[in-house]
């Protein structure tokens, strides 16, 4: 079994938003009663909120060898429908207030505010034996592309993170990230494996209730994406008195060197730890970390490979780069390299396609001491508030909804530039894309251009697009 919940029977597994404590023994009972209703290996969609039921679903499904696809509970309805049509799950595990929306399905079990719903589908696609968990790559645009993670992947990555973060039974992490997001899941995994406690909350950093929960329940850590750290600075975090807090982690995109330095200094001066990390869903979660004792000396760096992992850099011909300060594509090897992608239901029967080696698509360099630095990205996606948003998917989404405009997307992390050819659609496109993705409209700028520059084959010339506008 993946999670040995009974090993920690009397430990507190969860503290809920209302302050209720749930032991590992009780969590186990919730998991069992849910998965007993299913009773066989199959595909389930777990629609996630940071609540006990959602956690019991995730934990229980993995233990019972039921494969969950983790999606955010507030995913756009049409996008959710397209995931259902593509992957035909046997069950949906959803907040009960959503249950009525699934008219061709019936509710068979209810607990902790969640409902288990039987769909008309029964093992429509074969599931490979090693397949444990499915996560989206660019979930907010509805891309059907999923990452296939194995039981071995999760176990290897979790053990490694527990080791380098030195997570013990006494830890209490408060959630700041969604449960359908690989970084959020990795925090859950490491705490479940060690018998530590999770303070589950749907409240965010900008809400008083979040800080009350953190203080009352004496949280020892939380994680954040670059945007989280911008918010913390804005909240004058450095002046807050948070005695229970022991460490903070950062991942989900490159933190600005300026903020990295500020938080590293704060940690040293206040006897806390600040740990910058690097990872991808394709590597289960984590690939690198910057040991906290180097956080100030090496600020701006993503660190070194995690225990059990190995990095190399390759040039354009695939040859290994051995000289420091030379940019190449980052390659990672380790047991946490996932099986591969799924684009459709038939792909769920596929086995390991990567053999433990991941070509990351990120461009990096290392310094003379062997510390790695991210220098850029090969693929066409942005990280917006920590979420990967595929630019081509965004274009497709806009074009398929607005037939009479041409569109191209580009930009930098947390700031997407959308170019469209019809000025009348400026406002509508902004509202549409923000509503579809569930991402605040501040992350998008819609620009009007007379024509999208293209080559003879009809491919968009993004470099020219960016230049033409500046």
């Amino acid at each position, binding site marked *: 079994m993946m999670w040995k919940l009974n090993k920690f029977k009397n430990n507190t597994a969860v503290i809920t938003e209302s302050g209720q404590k749930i032991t590992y023994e009780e969590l186990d009972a919730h998991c069992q009663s849910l998965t007993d209703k299913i009773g066989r290996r199959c595909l389930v969609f777990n629609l996630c909120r940071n609540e006990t039921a959602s956690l019991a679903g995730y934990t229980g499904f993995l233990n019972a060898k039921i494969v969950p696809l983790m999606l955010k509970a507030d995913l756009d309805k049409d996008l959710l429908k397209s995931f259902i049509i593509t992957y035909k799950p046997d069950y949906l595990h959803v907040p009960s207030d959503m249950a009525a929306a699934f008219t061709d399905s019936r509710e068979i079990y209810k607990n902790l505010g969640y409902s288990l719903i039987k769909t008309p589908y029964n093992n429509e696609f074969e599931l490979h034996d090693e397949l444990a968990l499915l996560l989206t790559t660019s979930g907010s645009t509805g891309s059907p592309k999923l990452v296939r993670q194995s039981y071995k992947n999760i176990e290897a990555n979790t053990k490694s993170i527990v080791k380098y973060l030195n997570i013990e039974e006494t830890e209490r992490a408060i959630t700041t990230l969604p449960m359908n997001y690989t970084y959020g899941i990795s925090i859950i995994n490491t705490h479940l494996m060690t018998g530590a406690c999770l303070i589950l909350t749907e409240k*965010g*950093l*900008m*809400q*008083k209730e*979040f*800080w009350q929960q953190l203080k009352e329940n004496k949280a020892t850590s939380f994680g954040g994406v670059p*945007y989280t750290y*911008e*918010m913390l600075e*804005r*909240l*004058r*975090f450095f*002046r*807050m008195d948070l005695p229970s807090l022991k460490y903070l982690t950062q991942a989900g995109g490159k933190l600005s060197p300026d903020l990295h330095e500020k938080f590293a200094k704060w940690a040293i001066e206040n006897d806390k730890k600040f740990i910058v990390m690097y990872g991808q869903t394709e590597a289960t979660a984590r690939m690198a970390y910057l040991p906290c004792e180097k956080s100030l000396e090496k600020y701006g760096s993503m660190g070194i490979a995690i225990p059990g992992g190995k990095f190399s850099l390759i040039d354009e011909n695939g040859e290994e780069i051995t000289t420091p300060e030379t940019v190449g594509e980052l390659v990672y090897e380790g047991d946490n390299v996932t099986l591969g992608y799924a684009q459709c239901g038939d792909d769920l029967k596929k086995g390991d396609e990567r053999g433990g080696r991941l070509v990351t698509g990120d461009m990096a360099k290392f310094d003379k001491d062997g510390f790695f630095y991210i220098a850029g990205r090969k693929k066409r996606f942005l990280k917006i*508030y920590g979420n990967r948003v595929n630019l081509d998917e965004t274009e497709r989404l806009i074009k398929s909804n607005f037939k009479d405009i041409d569109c191209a997307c580009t930009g930098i992390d947390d700031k997407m530039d959308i170019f469209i050819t019809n000025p009348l659609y400026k406002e509508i496109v902004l*509202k549409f894309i*923000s*509503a579809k993705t*569930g991402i*605040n*409209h*501040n*992350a998008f700028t819609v620009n009007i251009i007379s024509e999208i520059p293209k080559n003879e084959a009809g491919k968009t010339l993004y470099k020219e697009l960016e230049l033409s506008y500046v």
Partner: protein
Amino acid sequence: MNNLEKYTKVFTETFEIPEEEVQSLKYQDIKAWDSVGHMGLVAKLEEAFDIMMETDDIIDLSSFEKGKEILAKYDVEIK
């Protein structure tokens, strides 16, 4: 423009909603007022009234109404 008009304008502009919807607005009532929107709101209020808000006030600003009380602490009367 009086303070109430200024205050209302910050909300309508930050969240791109009409004035009628602003009066009863609370945090997370609309997608635009999430943590990202909140950061923008605070920045614009600070700029509009030339103040620097304390942490406790930033996280307490949970509605259009509540914001008026909070700004009063900074000697900004919203009328």
